[in-house]
């Protein structure tokens, strides 16, 4: 087993920053993943309020520009530095895995793939759940990382999860030490207080208790914006002032917004707030699983933490009674 001593951890990070773009959890007004300029800002323990998805699946992406029937795409894969992302929690890492499935497996999205391929993912295991909204232990999360760090007294134990991770260790070998310490099964586990008791929610679609959540929902889409897994987007055209050049853009979109399913002519398929609220939960806990064998939700709790009315859909589901 390898370890990094905490006493040399800052040197390690400084060394990474010299040739790479270092991204880590920082806290300013809110906690988020940012490109690090000053390593004293890094807070490894932080479970960020905002997800890390913006580094791969960008909030705004220009797909191409068009001028007189000629298309120009932003140059992909160039001399951009390698990016090292550190401090990702198990939920964050699993969400990246799910987004990889959508943007690199279902269809090869060049914009996402470029950002993803130049990134090394270094996880940081939570010894304790961050707060009462975390429920990752009911979501069957897998191992998905290039390197994973386990906080153990005065050192981080290191697990290697990929070829990319192994090469990275070789490059920074002087910071990694062999150790007799090892990880027990319980060192890898996170026991969250909040738990989803129902694995299969297919029977609950017409349950009247959905009302508890729907009544408090503003359709504000904060849950989707803060979700590290949600991947739905909008495409639209933007024209310059002379109307001679246009750009095709991609933005994050949300199934919670009323116009999300609006077709030409004005019909809206998911017209009621209840339709939209349930659609999100079912996509997270059933539809994605039917298609890809795993929940889209990774239990990070951001949608509950960031909801203006703190709708706790886990609690709502747990309290739902089976109908005759």
């Amino acid at each position: 087993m390898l370890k990094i001593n905490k006493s040399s951890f800052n040197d390690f990070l400084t060394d990474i920053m010299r040739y790479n773009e270092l991204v880590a959890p920082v806290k300013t007004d809110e906690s988020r993943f940012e490109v690090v300029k000053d390593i004293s800002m890094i807070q490894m323990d932080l479970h960020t309020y905002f997800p890390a998805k913006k580094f791969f699946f960008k909030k705004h992406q220009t797909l191409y520009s068009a001028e007189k029937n000629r298309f120009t795409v932003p140059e992909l894969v160039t001399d951009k530095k390698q990016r090292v992302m550190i401090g990702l929690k198990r939920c964050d890492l699993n969400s990246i895995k799910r987004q990889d499935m959508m943007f690199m497996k279902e269809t090869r999205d060049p914009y996402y793939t470029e950002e993803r391929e130049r990134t090394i993912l270094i996880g940081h295991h939570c010894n304790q759940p961050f707060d009462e909204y975390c429920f990752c232990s009911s979501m069957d999360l897998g191992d998905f990382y290039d390197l994973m760090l386990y906080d153990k007294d005065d050192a981080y134990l290191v697990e290697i999860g990929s070829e990319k991770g192994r090469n990275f260790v070789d490059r920074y070998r002087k910071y990694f030490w062999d150790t007799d310490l090892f990880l027990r099964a319980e060192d890898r586990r996170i026991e969250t207080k909040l738990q989803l008791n129902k694995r299969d929610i297919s029977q609950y679609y017409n349950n009247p208790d959905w009302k508890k959540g729907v009544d408090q929902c503003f359709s504000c889409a904060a849950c989707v914006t803060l979700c590290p897994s949600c991947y739905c987007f909008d495409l639209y055209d933007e024209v310059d002032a002379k109307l001679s050049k246009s750009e095709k853009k991609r933005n994050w979109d949300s199934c919670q917004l009323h116009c999300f399913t609006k077709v030409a002519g004005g019909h809206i398929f998911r017209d009621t707030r209840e339709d939209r609220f349930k659609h999100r939960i079912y996509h997270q806990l059933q539809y994605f699983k039917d298609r890809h064998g795993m929940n889209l939700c990774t239990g990070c709790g951001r949608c509950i933490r960031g909801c203006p009315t703190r709708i706790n859909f886990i609690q709502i589901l747990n309290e739902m009674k089976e109908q005759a």
Partner: protein
Amino acid sequence: MPRTKTINQDQGEKTENPYLPRPTKITLVRRESPDCFLIRTDLKSKYEPGQFFQVSIPGIGEAPISVASYSQDFLDLNIREVGNVTKYLSKLKKGDTLFIRGPYGKGYPMEKLFGKSLMLIGGGSGVAPLKGILTYVDQHKDSFGDVTIYFGFRTPDDILFKEEMKQWRRKYQLNMSVDKNPKKAKISCDVCFITNLVEKAKLNPENKVVFICGPPVMMKITIELLKNKGFKEDQIYISTERLMKCALGVCGHCMIHGKYTCLDGPVFRYDEISQDRND
């Protein structure tokens, strides 16, 4: 300044970027009705009836349009002017460039249906995808049993494919209706809803498959009528309409209860989605 790369598609340069549309030349524009027109482009590639293309006007947007033909030499798109993109498309002329991506989605599984008798029920611009089936049947005459057609339109002015209609009337059993006839035009079809014609008809479900495409209410009523007449859900194919942005099975707009209309549809065998709530 970010670096960029220009794709010269007019010089045959290819790209694997799934979002980039490719240029085709318009070879024919034909006005079909006050709000519908047909565009033919010189696209030479394979597609199936029931599939769709993303038609794009740079600077305006993209719209999913279902194919209304079956050929490897050209592509017909029947377009109804209902939104921004389609209104702009109506201004295009012969010789203009039309940008398209596709074909996308699952079409009608014609090869699997060899030996069956076919029934086509279409309402309004929902007739367009069914037109491709009829061309397919023309090219595979001996592979299918008899073909019965039920096409309904709002008024006589709204009747689409008037040229083709004459041929279809000769070759197949064509039943047509208009909802109303406000100008009292001379017409050789019934004035009623197309669903009334289906209701009155004596239909034998044996060895038959039905294709339905039209407004949601018309499809719903037709399916009920057919089920009452002894048709099973797996004999019915419907073509669904949803908002489609990426057409790649990612953006999420077209999702119906976990199924992507752009990947798993737009043509569904009815038993595949009949259990699904309309969300």
